């Protein structure tokens, strides 16, 4: 027996997917013990920055088939359609569940839940809480979770590896950031819900915590990362900071203008205009910049996003946070001024290989939310599909992990104690006791971010991707020689940054290798040298597996098509 607490279900990550999994675990079995492990307090999780809303079919004349088709077409036919079909049916129930838990969804005068239009959606189906949807959803579900004594939180605990013994996942190893003490948290099942990895790029909407930790944990344990070449660039980021200007600005009727005063979307997505899918609008903006039709500012080219015609009343009711952000960070009032915007890295479609229940190929290991790939988003996620994805598949993973845990014997003591000693030694010798005079971690990270911006952006080429592939081992070598200024145990965030950078480099390896191998353009993966979609060769998921000392090994897996046969994706 172990003399340390062990749990039935351990969840890594306290954002929307992780918290939904935790509550689903308790609902599945009230006797369950759940560990909620996060490197931040849960309400700091990046869900908090989501703005626009959550898509779900709430009422006539909308239909499940319509939401499913929009999602599949938006994915450029790379979504697994059986997964999409389950999602569209579950999403409305999850929206109602959040409502029952107190989420302040915006309402119609009669008290019913409001919906707004969103990119790539053929009808109004995006539920919202003004333009702080993610903030309200996260705080609602976190506060709701506080009533369950079965959920034991480990706040500010950084997980460094999975315990994968006897062919199954049996918990995690990491350290409490306050003390720096490495320890294990054994559990019968583990759910990864660690979010995205946008900080691999310099210009991103993502918060500093989005470093791909969960993806790297699974990858190192032998689980494949799926579709990692598909990285979403959101059309409307603040040119200086990358702070997100929500797609709801266009949903509510905002226009995009180039420097010649043209609504240039008419050339690219004439039937949808500003409400085209994100991949296409981001390419349209980039193409316009290259044609010399963008505005030019201190941070490069940008376009104007204009909501002045909506009037102050609508802006203050539906987009108050956008007005606040404009005033605060750009010194503009969006009631009176157009908003400068440019495409910005936003979301990782790829992630840990998982099935419709969040189960990975490793017994006992589950994944949900942005860190996972359950086959739902394909080559391009539609805006407002990711918040309900966290709910639907977070809940599914929580239920499945609980059922699995019920069948398992407790984790065993002997190997775990040894693993903790090994991990403690690895961290100490690699970082805390190293005396070589290498670069600072922050400098290496910045170089990675800039190189990724340059080479793995909206449009890709063989040359750029090869350059990045050559750069990654050098960055890793520099990290191996990095010099930490901070040798203390207590709250050493420089050590955390170093370990996060290891995760970012692992993710970047798979992103670049997967992008190089996919010699076609599909969804968010646009190759200048292969501008057409090639269903003959690439109507398939890319699977990337870690290999010692080299680039990842790639495999392809067929897409599951049930209802919608692939056809040309025009809007």
């Amino acid at each position, binding site marked *: 027996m172990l003399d340390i607490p062990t749990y039935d279900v351990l969840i890594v990550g306290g954002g929307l997917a992780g918290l939904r999994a935790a509550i689903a675990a308790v609902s599945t079995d009230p006797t369950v013990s759940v560990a909620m492990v996060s490197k*931040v*307090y849960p*309400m*700091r*999780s*990046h869900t*908090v*920055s989501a703005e626009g809303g959550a898509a779900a079919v709430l009422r006539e004349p909308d239909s499940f088939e319509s939401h499913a088709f929009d999602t599949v077409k938006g994915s450029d036919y790379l979504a697994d359609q059986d997964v999409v079909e389950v999602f569209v049916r579950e999403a409305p129930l999850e929206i*109602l*569940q959040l*409502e*029952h*838990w*107190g989420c*302040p*969804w*915006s*309402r*119609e*005068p009669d*008290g*019913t*839940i409001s919906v707004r239009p969103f990119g790539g959606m053929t009808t109004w189906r995006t539920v919202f809480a003004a333009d*702080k949807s993610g*903030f309200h959803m996260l*705080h609602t579900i976190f*506060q*709701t979770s*506080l*009533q369950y004594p079965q959920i034991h939180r480990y*706040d500010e605990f950084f997980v460094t590896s999975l315990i994968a013994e006897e062919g199954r996942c049996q918990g995690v190893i990491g350290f409490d950031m*306050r003390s720096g003490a490495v320890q294990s948290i054994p559990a019968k099942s583990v759910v990864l819900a660690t979010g995205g990895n946008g900080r691999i790029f310099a210009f991103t909407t993502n*918060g*500093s*915590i989005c470093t791909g930790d969960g993806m790297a944990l699974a990858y190192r344990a032998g689980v494949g990362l799926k579709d990692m070449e598909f990285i979403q660039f959101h059309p409307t980021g603040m040119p*200086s*900071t990358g*702070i997100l200007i929500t797609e709801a600005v266009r949903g509510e009727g905002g226009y995009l203008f180039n420097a010649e005063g043209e609504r240039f979307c008419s050339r690219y997505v004439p039937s949808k205009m500003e409400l085209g899918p994100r991949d296409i609008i981001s390419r349209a903006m980039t193409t316009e910049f290259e044609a010399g039709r963008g505005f030019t500012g201190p941070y490069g080219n940008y376009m104007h996003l204009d909501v002045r015609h909506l009037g102050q009343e609508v802006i203050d009711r539906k987009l108050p*946070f956008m007005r*606040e*952000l404009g005033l*605060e*960070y750009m010194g503009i009032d969006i009631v009176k001024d157009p908003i400068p915007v440019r495409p910005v890295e936003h979301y990782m479609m790829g992630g840990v290989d998982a099935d419709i229940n969040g189960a990975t190929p490793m017994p006992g290991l589950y994944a949900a939310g942005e860190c996972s790939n359950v086959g739902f988003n394909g080559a391009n996620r539609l805006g407002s599909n990711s918040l309900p994805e966290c709910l639907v598949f977070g809940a599914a993973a929580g239920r499945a992990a609980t059922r699995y845990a019920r069948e398992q014997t407790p984790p065993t003591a002997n190997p775990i104690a040894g693993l903790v000693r090994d991990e403690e030694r690895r961290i100490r010798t690699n970082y805390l006791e190293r005396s070589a005079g290498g670069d*600072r*971690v*922050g*400098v290496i*990270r*910045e170089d990675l971010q800039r190189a990724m911006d340059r080479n793995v952006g909206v449009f890709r080429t063989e040359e750029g991707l090869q350059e990045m592939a050559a750069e990654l081992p050098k960055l890793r070598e520099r990290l191996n020689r990095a010099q*930490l*200024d*901070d040798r*203390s*145990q*207590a*709250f*050493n*965030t*420089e050590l955390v*940054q170093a370990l996060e950078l290891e995760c970012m480099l692992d993710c970047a390896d798979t992103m670049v290798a997967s992008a190089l191998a996919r010699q076609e353009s599909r969804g968010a993966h646009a190759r200048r040298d292969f501008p057409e979609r090639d269903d003959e060769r690439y109507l398939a998921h890319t699977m990337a597996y870690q290999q010692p000392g080299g680039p990842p090994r790639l495999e392809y897996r067929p897409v599951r098509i049930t209802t919608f046969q692939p056809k040309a994706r025009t809007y």
Partner: protein
Amino acid sequence: MAAPKTITLSVSRFDPERDEEPRLQSYDVPFHDDWVVLDALNWIKTHADGSVNYRWSCRMGICGSCGMNVNRQPKLGCSAFLRDYLPGPIVVEPLNNFPVLRDLIIDMDSFMEKLRWVKPWIIREETALSAGEHRQTPAQIEQFRQFSMCINCMLCYSACPVIPIEPSFVGPAAIALARRYDLDSRDRAGEERLRTITGNDAVWDCSFVGECSAVCPKDVDPAKAIQQTKFESTMGMLLPWGGTK
């Protein structure tokens, strides 16, 4: 070309493994006009001293991580613009009224316990999802909307004059969130939550200085929540029909 502008940040440093007391350490930071204190700290950590520790994530005033004292005023580091503190120096310290774990990082576990204590969740008989949504009009949302905007940044606890005297005082943000649920038309807690926040360590400890509302970066106005709760509990005592919904 103009010489690059620099500003001096004096950052509070404390390492429990080495220091008895916090000390200030100065850094000269080259900066852009649109930089905030958080940008300056990030520059220091990347280019000057990797051992400076602070919390941050979203850098857009919504995650609530980067509360700190900037020239003795509680601020979000991501919305305190360097240009407002020229010519400097800027003194950056941890928030008041919390134990310091390291440099600018406070121990806020006490708040996490206080938050749970006020039961910040909907209390009512569970209804089936198949029954659909509870209707709630825009006017009903308006009743509690302001109090639902709290980002748990702890600025109000740092400004509160009661907390240093009564550390067990549940405090402004937790009371605002209790009020948020009390005013939600879907909630049926009635006396259950109200009794908690009108009992010991709660609203009656507040001396109504209003500092909490003055420093709130999201205009939550916790002082209003406290006053409303006091009023409601008084009405509940005085009037047989009064007070709670």
